[in-house]
C-alpha cells in the first residue's frame, strides 16, 4: 500500500474502529483522532519533502507522482464496450500542497473538537470519514473515483452540521446539502457524457480517466464533447455547456456570488471544527476542481468564459467585503470575508497567467490557514460566553491579551499585511489579472483595479472590528459574569493556533517553499490551457 492510499484509508479504518469501540471509551476518541491526523501530517510532510518539483504533471499521466493505478471495475457491457473504472491516484504540483494543508487543518480541527460534548462516537467517526473523503478528492485522477469521494464528503458534513450545529443547524445543513447536490448532480451528467466521448487509446474502451480526457485526440469522432465535432446543445456549444455545468458545480463550493448564500449559514451554524474544515479545506476543493477539471478538460471553453469568471471574481471580492462590513455577528463577518478572499482565487485562475494562477494557488493555501485560524478564534470566544455579537464586547485587549494578539495576527494577515502569505498571494493574483490583457487578452485591466479595492475594504472591516471589540475600556454585555468566563487562550488553543500563524508567516516571508514545488506544474498548466 502506497502513501496516498494510506493517507486516504487510515482515517477511514480508524473511523470504523471508533464505531466498534465501546462508548465507555468515548473520552479517548479525540486523542485517537488527533493521533490519526498527526500521522497524516507526518506523511504529508514526508510527501512534501519527497515531491519532485521538476515534473509538471497536469495532462501527462507519466508525470504524476506516487501514482497508484489498479483496475477496479471492469464490466463487459456487450456492444457498449467494456466499463473501465480505475482506482487511480496520483499527485502533481497542483494537488500536493492541498494534502499538506488538509492534514494540518484537520489536526487543528481535532484540537478544536474538545468543545464537542455529545455523541462523541458518531462525531469522530463522521469526522474521520470526512477526512478520508477530502484526501481522496485531492488524490483521485479517475473521474468516477473523484466523484465518489466528492459526494462522500457531503454525507458526513450534513450530519456534522445538522447534529452538532447551532440553533438553525437543520436549515443550514439542508441548505448546504441541497446547494452542493444541485451542482454535483449536473456534474454527473457531464461525467457520463465525457465517458461516452472519450476512449482510452491503449485499450479502446471508454474510460473515466481524467488525464485521458484532457487530450483532444482521445475523443471519439463525432461524440458529444469532441472538440472537433463541435456539437451544439440547447443552442450553445456542448463543450461550453459542459464547462459551465462543471464550473457551477465547483463554483458553488468556492463559493461565488451569487451562489454563496449557503456559506454564511453553514459556517455560522456549524460547530467550530466543522467551520474550520469548511473554510479551510472545503472551499479549496472548489478552486482545485476548477483547475484540475474545468480548465484542464475544457481549455477551449475556459478561454471563452474567462471574462465572465474574472467578473464573477471581482464581484465576489467587492460584494463579499461590503457584506462583511454590514455584519454584527463575528462569525458571519469572517464567513463573508471568505467569500471576498476566495474571489481572488477566481480572478487569478481566470487571468490565465502564471502569476495569476500561482497567486490563486497560494491564496487558497494561505486562506486555508488564515480562515481556520479566524474560525478557531471566533470559536474560542463563543465557547466561553456563547455570544459572538460584535456589539456585545469592548476592550477585550485588556482582558485577553494573548487572545487579542492572535486575533491581531489573524486579522492583519487576512487583510494582506506584507510578511504574511495573503499579501504575496493577493498581490500576484492581481498582478496576473492586470497583465492578462498584455499576455493573453483574457481579462481587461480594470478587473485588477477593481479587485484591489477589495484589499482596501478588507482593511476597513477587520480594523473596524478590532477597534470596536478589542480596544477601548472593557465593557461587556454579560457584565461581571462574563468577566470571569472570559479567560485567555489556554495551552491547547495556543498549540492549535501557533502552527497556523507560523505557516501564514512562513509563506509570507519565504513564499518559495510553496512556489518552488508548484512552479513547473503551474507553468505547464498555463501553457496547456492557453495553447
Amino acid at each position: 500500500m502506497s502513501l496516498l492510499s494510506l493517507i486516504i484509508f487510515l482515517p477511514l479504518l480508524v473511523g470504523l474502529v471508533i464505531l466498534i469501540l465501546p462508548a465507555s471509551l468515548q473520552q479517548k476518541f479525540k486523542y485517537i483522532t488527533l493521533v490519526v491526523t498527526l500521522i497524516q501530517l507526518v506523511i504529508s510532510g514526508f510527501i512534501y519533502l519527497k515531491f519532485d518539483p521538476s515534473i509538471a504533471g497536469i495532462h501527462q499521466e507519466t508525470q504524476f507522482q506516487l501514482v497508484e493505478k489498479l483496475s477496479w471495475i471492469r464490466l463487459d457491457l456487450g456492444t457498449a464496450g467494456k466499463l473501465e473504472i480505475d482506482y487511480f491516484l496520483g499527485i502533481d504540483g497542483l494537488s500536493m500542497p492541498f494534502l499538506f494543508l488538509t492534514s494540518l487543518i484537520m489536526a487543528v480541527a481535532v484540537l478544536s473538537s474538545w468543545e464537542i460534548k455529545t455523541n462523541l462516537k458518531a462525531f469522530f467517526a463522521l469526522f474521520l470519514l470526512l477526512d478520508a473523503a477530502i484526501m481522496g478528492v485531492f488524490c483521485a485522477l479517475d473521474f468516477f473515483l473523484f466523484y465518489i469521494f466528492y459526494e462522500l464528503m457531503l454525507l458526513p458534513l450534513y450530519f456534522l452540521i445538522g447534529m452538532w450545529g447551532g440553533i438553525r443547524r437543520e436549515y443550514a445543513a439542508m441548505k448546504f446539502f441541497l446547494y452542493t447536490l444541485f451542482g454535483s448532480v449536473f456534474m454527473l451528467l457531464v461525467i457520463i457524457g465525457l465517458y461516452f466521448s472519450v476512449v482510452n487509446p491503449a485499450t479502446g474502451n471508454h474510460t473515466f480517466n481524467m488525464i485521458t480526457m484532457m487530450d483532444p485526440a482521445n475523443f471519439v469522432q463525432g461524440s458529444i464533447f469532441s472538440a472537433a465535432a463541435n456539437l451544439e446543445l440547447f443552442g450553445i456549444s456542448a463543450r461550453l455547456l459542459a464547462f459551465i455545468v462543471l464550473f457551477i458545480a465547483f463554483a458553488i463550493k468556492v463559493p461565488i456570488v451569487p451562489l454563496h448564500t449557503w456559506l454564511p449559514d453553514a459556517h455560522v451554524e456549524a460547530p467550530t471544527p466543522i467551520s474550520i474544515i469548511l473554510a479551510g479545506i472545503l472551499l479549496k476543493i472548489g478552486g482545485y476542481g476548477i483547475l484540475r477539471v474545468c480548465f484542464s478538460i475544457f481549455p477551449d471553453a475556459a478561454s471563452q468564459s474567462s471574462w465572465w469568471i474574472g467578473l464573477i471574481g471581482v464581484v465576489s471580492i467587492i460584494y463579499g467585503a461590503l457584506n462583511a462590513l454590514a455584519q454584527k455577528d463575528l462569525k458571519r463577518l469572517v464567513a463573508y470575508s471568505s467569500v471576498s478572499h476566495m474571489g481572488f482565487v477566481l480572478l487569478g485562475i481566470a487571468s490565465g497567467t502564471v502569476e495569476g494562477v500561482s497567486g490563486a494557488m497560494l491564496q487558497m493555501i494561505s486562506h486555508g490557514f488564515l480562515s481556520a485560524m479566524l474560525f478557531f478564534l471566533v470559536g474560542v470566544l463563543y465557547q466561553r460566553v456563547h455570544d459572538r455579537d460584535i456589539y456585545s464586547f469592548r476592550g477585550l485587549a485588556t482582558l485577553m491579551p494573548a487572545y487579542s494578539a492572535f486575533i491581531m495576527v489573524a486579522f492583519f494577515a487576512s487583510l494582506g499585511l506584507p510578511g504574511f502569505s495573503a499579501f504575496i498571494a493577493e498581490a500576484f493574483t492581481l498582478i496576473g489579472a492586470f497583465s492578462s490583457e498584455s499576455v493573453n487578452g483574457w481579462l481587461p485591466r480594470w478587473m485588477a483595479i477593481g479587485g484591489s479595492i477589495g484589499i482596501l475594504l478588507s482593511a476597513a472591516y477587520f480594523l473596524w472590528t478590532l477597534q470596536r471589540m478589542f480596544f477601548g475600556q472593557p465593557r461587556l454585555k454579560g457584565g461581571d459574569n462574563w468577566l470571569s468566563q472570559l479567560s485567555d487562550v489556554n495551552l491547547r488553543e495556543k498549540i492549535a493556533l501557533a502552527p497556523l500563524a507560523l505557516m501564514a508567516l512562513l509563506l509570507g516571508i519565504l513564499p518559495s517553499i510553496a512556489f518552488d514545488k508548484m512552479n513547473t506544474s503551474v507553468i505547464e498548466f498555463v501553457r496547456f490551457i492557453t495553447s
Partner: protein
Amino acid sequence: MEALSQNYIVLAILAVLLPVAGFLRVLFIKNTSRAFFYAIAGISASFIISAYIFTAVWNNQTVHYQANWFTIGNTTISIGILINNLAALMMVLVTGISLLVHIYSLAYMKNDPLIHRYCGYLGLFCGCMLLLVIADNLLVLYMAWELVGFSSYLLIGFWFTKDAAAIAAKKAFIMNRIGDVGFLIGLFIIYTQFGTFDIQKLFGEQGLVGSAILHNGVWIAASGQLPAMWLTVAGIAFFMGAAAKSAQFPLHTWLPDAMEGPTSVSSLIHAATMVAAGVFLVARIFPLFNETVLLFIAITGVFTAFLAATIALTQNDIKRVLAFSTISQLGFMMLAMGTGSVAGGIFHLATHAFFKCLLFLAAGAIIHELGHVKEKENVDFDTQDIRLMGGLRKRMPVTFYTMVVASLALVGLPFTSGYLSKDAILIHSFEWAKSRGGLFKIIPYTALLVSWLTTFYISRLIFKVFFGEWRLQKKLNAIFSVHESPAEMKYPMIILAVFSLFFIFSYHPLLFEKSWILSGFDQAESLQRINAFHTIIPATVNLISLLIIYLCYRWYVKPGFAGVAQSNFFYRLSESQWYFDRIYDILIIKPVTQLWTAVYWFERRVVDGIVNLAGSFGIISSSVSAWVDKYLIDGIVNGVAVLAKRIGDFSRHFQTGRLQHYLVTMLFFVLTFFVLKYFTQLL
C-alpha cells in the same frame, strides 16, 4: 573592495534586524524592566552601523546586493539592498533621530505599564523603516511601506483603551491603505510593462524606465508595451501612495488624528521619518514621472502646504499645530519634487526631520510636565491646550531655547538649517515657473505666502506658550510649580537644536547651494540660475517674516489685543480644518455605509431571497405532488377498495340468516331465470 562591500551588506542587514529583534523579544518576554536597555542597545548599534555605511557610501560608491527571494512561474523576484546617497542619508537620519527619541522616551514613558510593548513597537518601526530605505526592489519597498504603516497603527493606538486613539489608529491605517492601493496599481503597471521590480534596473542610469519610449500613444519598453495613458496612471498611482503616507491633500486627515499617540511617537514617526517616506518614494522612482504627473505633484504639494498652514493658524492643541505644520512642510517637499528638484526636496526632508522632531519633543516636554502638575495637584485640564499655557519661558528655559531654535528653522531665518532648505525649494520653484511662465507662477507665489503663514502660526505658538502669564493659574486661581524636564529628555533636545543650525549642512550660512546634501544628488532638471532670485527672495521672505513675528509679539504678548472675531468665516474654516472630516463623512463614509447596508439588504432579500424562494417553490411543489399522491394516485387504489367494501356492505344485507329470505331470493332468481329463459326462447 569586493570584500569590503560584503561587509556593508552584512552590516546593513544587521542594522535592519537589530531593532526588529526588540520587537520579537516583546512577543515572548513580558519583562518591562530591561526593555529600554535592549531597545537602546539595538538602535545604537544600528545607528553606528548606519553612520559607518554613510561615510563609506556618500558620494563614493553604491552598495548593491541581491539574492533570489522566490520564483513565481518563470519570474524570479529578488530581495536585496541598494544603498546609494539617498538611502545612506535616510539611514543615518532614521537611526539618529530614532536613537534620540528612544533616549527621550526613557523619561517620557517611564511610568507606563506597557513600556515593553512600546519599545517593541518602536523597534519594529525602525527595522521596517530601514528596510524601506534600503530595499532595492519595489515589492520589498511596498512591504516595508505597509509594515511601517502597521507599526504606526500600533503606536498611534498604543493607549488602546482610549477610544479616540483606537479610532485614530484605524483611520490612519485605512487612509494609508487607500494610498497603498494606488501604490499596488503602480506595481501592477511596472510589472506588466517591465517584468521586474528591481529599482536599479528600472530607474538606474540606462534603466528600463528611462529607455522606454512613447510612440504614437503607445508606451513601449523592452519587454512589453501599454497604451501611453498607463504611464501617467502609474505616476499618479505611485504618487497616491506617497500622498497617503506623506499626508498630502486629499489624504491628509489622518495625520492630525494620529497625534493621539505618545508625543515621542509623533515626533519620530509622524513628523520626522515615516511621513517623509512618501517624499523618499517619489525621489526613488523619480524617472517614472512624466510632465503631467510632476505638475500634478507640484500642485498637490503647494495646495497641501497652503491648506495645512491656514489650518495651523487657529488650532489650540499644541500637537495639532505641529501636525498641520508637518503636513504643510511635507507639501513643500512635494512641491520641490514636482518642480524637479529632488535634491531640494530631500534636503528639506533632512533639515525638517531634525527641527520638527525637536518641536515635537519640546511640546512633549511641556505636555509631560503639565501632566505632572495635573497629577500632583489633582486638577483636571487639557495638558495640550495652548490657551492654558503661557509664561513657561522662565520655568522651562532649555525647552524654551531649543524650541525657539527649531521654530526659527521652521520659519527659515538665516543661520538655521531651515533657511537653506526652504530657500532651495522657493528659489527653485521661482526659476521653474519662470521657465514656463503664465499660470505656473501661481505656484511659487503661493509657496511664498505659505512661508509667511508658517511664520505666523509658529510665532503664535511660541508667544502663547512661553510668554505672558500662565493662564492656567489664572483660570484655576491657584499657584502651580512646573520645572525643567529630566536629563534624558533635555539632552536629545539640545542635540537636535544643534542639528537645526546651518553649520551641520553647509559652511555658508546664507547660500544653500554650498550645502553638501545638495551636491549628493543630481538636479533632474537644470534650470538657468537667475541670480536676482537668489538675493531678492530670501531677503523679502525674511524681512516680512520678521515683521510678522513682531506683529505676533504685539498681539499675543502685549496686552490689548482683542483677538480676531471667532465668527469670521475664514476663522471658522481654519479652525474646523476646512471641514474635511465632515465633508468626507458626508461624501464618502455615509454613502459607503449606505452602500454596504444596501448590499446586505440585497444579499438577504434578493440573493438569499431567491434561494429561499427556490426552497419555498420546492416545498410548494412537493406539497402539490403530495396532495396528488394522497388524493389521486392513492385515491384510485383506495377507491377500488372502498368500492368493493361498498358492494360488500350492500350485499351483506342479503345475509339475514333467515332461511326464508334465502329461499325467497332463490325463488326469485329461479323464477327470473325461468321467465327470461322462457321469453327469450319465445322470442
